[in-house]
């Protein structure tokens, strides 16, 4: 592990009972397998103005962002979820989705580096 500032934090995971390195690695692998792909999909759904899909992805993403403590985008994900659900402020969603995607891709790269994956 590095001491460089990171977009994500494993604090919440390590606070869980019996959260050993094996468990953390499992969660990281699953995150890498599913989450970066889903934020790419989020950007595509915004481009298509498919707001139901945008809402669904943002809703699911929220729990992961909280779990891995990706502070930078917590508010943005909530904003996207709410706006897509209520069909308000739609014009702001796409730019925030890009920020979310970039941050997730950055966190994924950092995880790969930190865990030699």
């Amino acid at each position, binding site marked *: 592990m590095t001491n460089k500032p990171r977009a994500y934090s494993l604090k*919440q995971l390590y606070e869980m*009972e019996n959260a050993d390195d094996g468990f953390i690695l499992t969660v990281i692998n699953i995150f890498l397998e599913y*989450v970066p792909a889903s934020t790419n999909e989020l950007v595509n759904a915004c481009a298509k103005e498919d707001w139901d899909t945008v809402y669904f992805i943002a809703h699911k993403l*929220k729990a*992961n962002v*909280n779990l891995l403590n990706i502070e930078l985008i917590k508010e943005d994900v909530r904003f996207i979820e709410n706006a897509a659900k209520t069909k308000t402020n739609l014009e702001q969603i796409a730019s925030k989705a890009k920020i979310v995607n970039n941050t997730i891709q950055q966190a994924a790269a950092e995880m790969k580096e930190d865990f030699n994956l």
Partner: protein
Amino acid sequence: MKQDPISIFIVEDDAVYSAVLGHFLSLNPDFHVKKFNTAKNFLSAVYEKPDIVTLDYSMPDTNGDLLLMQVKELSPDTKVIIISGQEDIKVAVELFKKGADDYIVKDGDTQERLWLSIRNMRENISLKKEVSSLQQEVAKKYNFQKAMIGNSHTLKQVFSLMEKAASTNITVTVTGETGTGKDLVAKAIHFNSDRKKFPFVPVNVAAIPRELLESELFGHEKGAFTGANAKRIGKFEEANNGTLFLDEIGEMDINMQAKLLRVLQEQEISRVGSNELIKINVRIIVATHRNLLDQVKKGKFREDLFYRLLGLTVHLPPLRERGSDIILVAKHFIDEFCRENNFSKKHLSGDAKKKLMLHSFPGNIRELKSVVELASVMCDTEEIMEEHIQINSQANNHFRSASDSLTLKQFTAQLIQHCLDTNNYDVLKVASQLDVGKSTIYRMVNNNELKLQKNADNKLHDK
């Protein structure tokens, strides 16, 4: 309290969250956890009837409300914890109305709240399982065929009446000699009826002093009489929604009979020392070894109460009228006694069976039980012999036998003759009791092996 393992299904399409929940719940080795990432996969496994399901409200292939209703329909006893990404009170209330057992929002405290929720549910599940297992045990114990052993025609008629009694709410009068199992019939009717989840309360009227019976049945208020130091609930209230079994009703004091009649008519009681009327819903089963109609004629039993209680009468035949049931019942008691006392299995020798069959058993089942239990103790081998069967000969003066010196044919004739003598020469009844054809009996009569007397012309009851 020791708790059984429980099965938990995690229904969650978010792979990260599913892994976290799975890890967290697997910390307890008593939690058997399975994960499902689609509603379809989960529904195909719900037949396993998991104890608890954690259900993500937003599944991609269905909506949470629908999935909840499907779970409750397919497995009503499964507890469902909704785990949602949104804290929406309206949605939560709607889900509770539809049967959700808890609603937890995905945030930093989710695991802790889930743990608490499952811990509470687990206690409830364990208690429910314990109650259900006890209910099954009771139902098994009081299954009609197990409560009373035998294949005789007379007993089959009793079973048929018991089934009718169990499926309705009719008042039942159980009659029969002492020791025929009237209390067992009452219990079996109760535990096979819709009231089985409520109390069965037996009261032996003959065993309670006359002056205490009213307070025993209806309860009393504090200070109602000397010695009434505290308020006490009576048997009627105790049996509310269940069954009150009044054994030996024929022994009830005539004044008490009037009070009982009023309660039966009004379906309400008042405790001794109180004017407050308390509504009750109690099924009444009564039993007596007396002929209540005779008691009515003698003025010892109120006619109005007699008709109020009459309902369905289940008459239990004495053991001597149940033919080969004697051996079946004896075997049952021997097996039970040997099992309870860690004896090796014992069986009756031919002569021992013969001796039992020839006895009139005035004490009925109770007497037979004592006789065979004693025989099981006296017998050191696996075969219970005639000498181990110790019967009070005073009680067996209906029939004397020098059976040791008889051939099987002579013994059979003597047994049938004994039954004919004690059953008013009713050929059909005796044929049924002994499980032989009536033509066999007539053939033996024609061969002068049996006699249909004393007045053969009008005692012949071939109906």
